[in-house]
């Protein structure tokens, strides 16, 4: 990834501001237009409402894309995780149990508990607190108000779910800056906006990342 600038604290702060400016630039014109139209002619209030709906929906769509980073991927090696349904073979269930055992060995007591409850792993790093899923990660920045969502995954999609998480965990622990540089940002913004788009287990994991 030599073409990407290495991520650092300053980079993340600047990047977060750019996301905020972008969000404002997407929504303010709709809000202004809605107010102006409504003030000019009350008959245009329905149009104003449509414009306001756009102003609300655009950041929501971005946040939904970001929340997708913690969506559980299904694949040949996945097993029913918290909140998912049946349908996997016995072999993959066995593989997942083996993988979960290895992942558990890498975790302290509390993160292991959280993984058992939510299927996500919490890891504190220099850039903030990470919530790792099997195909993405959330970085809760210091202060807890901003969340960066990253799409990043193990290249072998047939791995059991816990192995895919262990891949991300070990890569993160080996080189957090490299991990954040390699991963693709899908959203950066308010924690509350991402939180309400998450599945209940992922929301629980995010709540633990304070």
């Amino acid at each position, binding site marked *: 990834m030599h073409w990407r600038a290495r991520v650092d604290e300053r980079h993340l702060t600047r990047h977060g501001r750019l996301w905020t400016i972008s969000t404002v630039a997407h929504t303010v014109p709709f809000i202004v237009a809605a107010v102006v139209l409504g003030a000019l002619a009350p008959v245009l209030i329905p149009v104003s409402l449509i414009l306001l709906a756009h102003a609300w929906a655009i950041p929501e769509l971005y946040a939904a894309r970001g929340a997708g980073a913690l969506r559980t991927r299904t694949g040949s090696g996945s097993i029913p995780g918290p909140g998912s349904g049946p349908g996997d073979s016995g072999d993959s269930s066995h593989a*997942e149990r083996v*993988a979960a055992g290895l992942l558990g060995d890498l975790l302290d007591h509390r993160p292991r508990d959280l993984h058992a409850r939510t299927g996500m792993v919490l890891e504190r790093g220099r850039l903030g607190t990470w919530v790792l899923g099997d195909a993405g990660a959330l970085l809760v920045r210091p202060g807890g108000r901003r969340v960066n969502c*990253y*799409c*990043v995954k*193990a*290249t072998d999609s047939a791995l*059991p779910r816990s*192995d895919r998480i262990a*891949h991300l965990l070990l890569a993160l622990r080996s080189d957090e800056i490299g991990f954040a540089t390699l991963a693709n940002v899908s959203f950066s913004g308010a924690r509350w906006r991402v939180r309400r788009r998450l599945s209940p287990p992922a929301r629980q994991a995010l709540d633990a990342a304070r």
Partner: protein
Amino acid sequence: MSRLVRMDQTGHTTVAEWTADDPEAIEQAVRAFRSELEQGYYAVVSEGAGHAQHVRELPRDASLVILRRPIAGG
């Protein structure tokens, strides 16, 4: 007993085991380690919560060496 394990579709597979006082087992583990790296695996030694080290030679004193695939941005 030290172990070299590879994360794969079965959960994980023990590729090699060795003890410090068994040169033959160490030699086998080193060969297996190099072979896995040539196939594109990365080797990592977990050093407790928050820390892991990427290694390019088999650390003979590590109790567990884990082989993982590369990761990529999605």
